[in-house]
């Protein structure tokens, strides 16, 4: 099986690696680039734990081949905090919007993508946007509250 040369920008840094043709972007991020913040819950597009942003679009990295990332910009949870935590990250801690935390990176990445498109969503809009992010622990309510609180803070700051 001949390997495919993949050249991408991950969280702002140019990255090159060799991918097996069947390798998913999720596996490449975790196993080749040591970016293990992106999680695998199902591997089949149902849980959203593997959410990343590719060229500005929120996708499941388990449903994309690493080879398809060639020439694209990939943003993962590792790129979310700067010197300080992103408001969403801080609000998730304040509201205890996580328990085991396995779903959290995917939900944070997805929620950030939502607030960039829609800084003032309704609760229903948040719930529909995050319908592809499963959480087995929290019951979702605290997640919605944390997202809304972060949105309010980010609107205030803007």
């Amino acid at each position: 099986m001949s390997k495919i040369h993949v050249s991408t920008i991950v969280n702002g840094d140019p990255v090159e690696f060799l991918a097996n043709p069947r390798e998913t972007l999720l596996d490449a991020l975790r196993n080749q680039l040591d970016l293990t913040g992106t999680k695998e819950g199902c591997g089949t597009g149902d849980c959203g734990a593997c959410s990343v942003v590719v060229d500005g679009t929120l996708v499941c990295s388990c449903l994309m081949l690493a080879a398809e990332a060639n020439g694209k910009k990939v943003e993962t949870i590792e790129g979310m905090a700067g010197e300080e935590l992103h408001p969403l990250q801080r609000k998730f801690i304040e509201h205890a919007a996580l328990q085991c935390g396995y779903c959290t990176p995917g939900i944070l990445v997805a929620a950030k993508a939502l607030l960039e498109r829609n800084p003032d969503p309704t609760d229903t809009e948040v719930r529909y946007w995050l319908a592809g992010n499963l959480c087995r622990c929290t019951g979702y309510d605290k997640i919605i509250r944390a997202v809304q609180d972060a949105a309010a803070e980010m609107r205030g700051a803007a």
Partner: protein
Amino acid sequence: MRYHTPTSFADAAVIAAAATGTLRFLAGGTDVLVQMRAGVVQPDDLIDLKHIPGVDEIEQTPDGGWKIGIAVPGIVLGAHDALVRDWPGVVEGMNLVGSTQVQGRATLAGNLCNGSPAADSVPGLIAAGATVTVTGPNGSREVPVEQVPAGPGRTNLAKGEVVSRITLPPRGKNGGDCYLRFIPRTEMDIAVVGCAVSLRLDGDRIVEARVALGAVAPTVILSDAAAKAIIGTTLDDAALAALTKAAQAEAKPISDKRGTKEFRIEVAGVLARRAAKIAYDRAKGLTK
């Protein structure tokens, strides 16, 4: 597995025609990667169509129709205001597919060519009278969408053929369409029954109609009988009753874990009625 990235449909068709083992095209990958992961399908050749120029474009034709590239994902269709104004039913069908993340990748062409009888965008395309351009090693032909599916997981495309474009006809005046599906949840589920209606009015009277039903037969079906039940009417109670009966007669579903045969037949009638009313109101300009 060989991963190909042709830059023209002609090249894609040549690679596909020469393939001797299991072959898949890669549009959004939201079916293909799931099937690879599950071990259901292990392609020997995978042809990624996204390097072909124009596949991510939506373009209005001079006559007012629409040409949609085969790699345009659901989220882009949903954000295209002019297309949504013309064909809300087509777009709402596609936008029901999966989550936000799936919408970022999933395409109309993939939904159609995956061949699921429950594919959510297919009834809307059929009701709209959409066609696809099919390109093979010897050139291209235009095929009505209803002639593409052959059965669960199968299409009528010949070896070496690939869908190279989707075309929606001009919406024209006084038209409206709608797609509804029934699922036991509110999101992230597979249609138990789906129904799309597209119609045109002259005053209050329906002069053209197409009705398509999903998940009640081995393929999505176009029902002439259901369309006839409302053509020439003002969608009054008698017409709605005739439509219900015709849609139910056309439904030949199976019983499975998501619904019994009897339930699906019942729901086919209910959705046909509701979709027709919404399409009618849209044609009148009463709702979006």
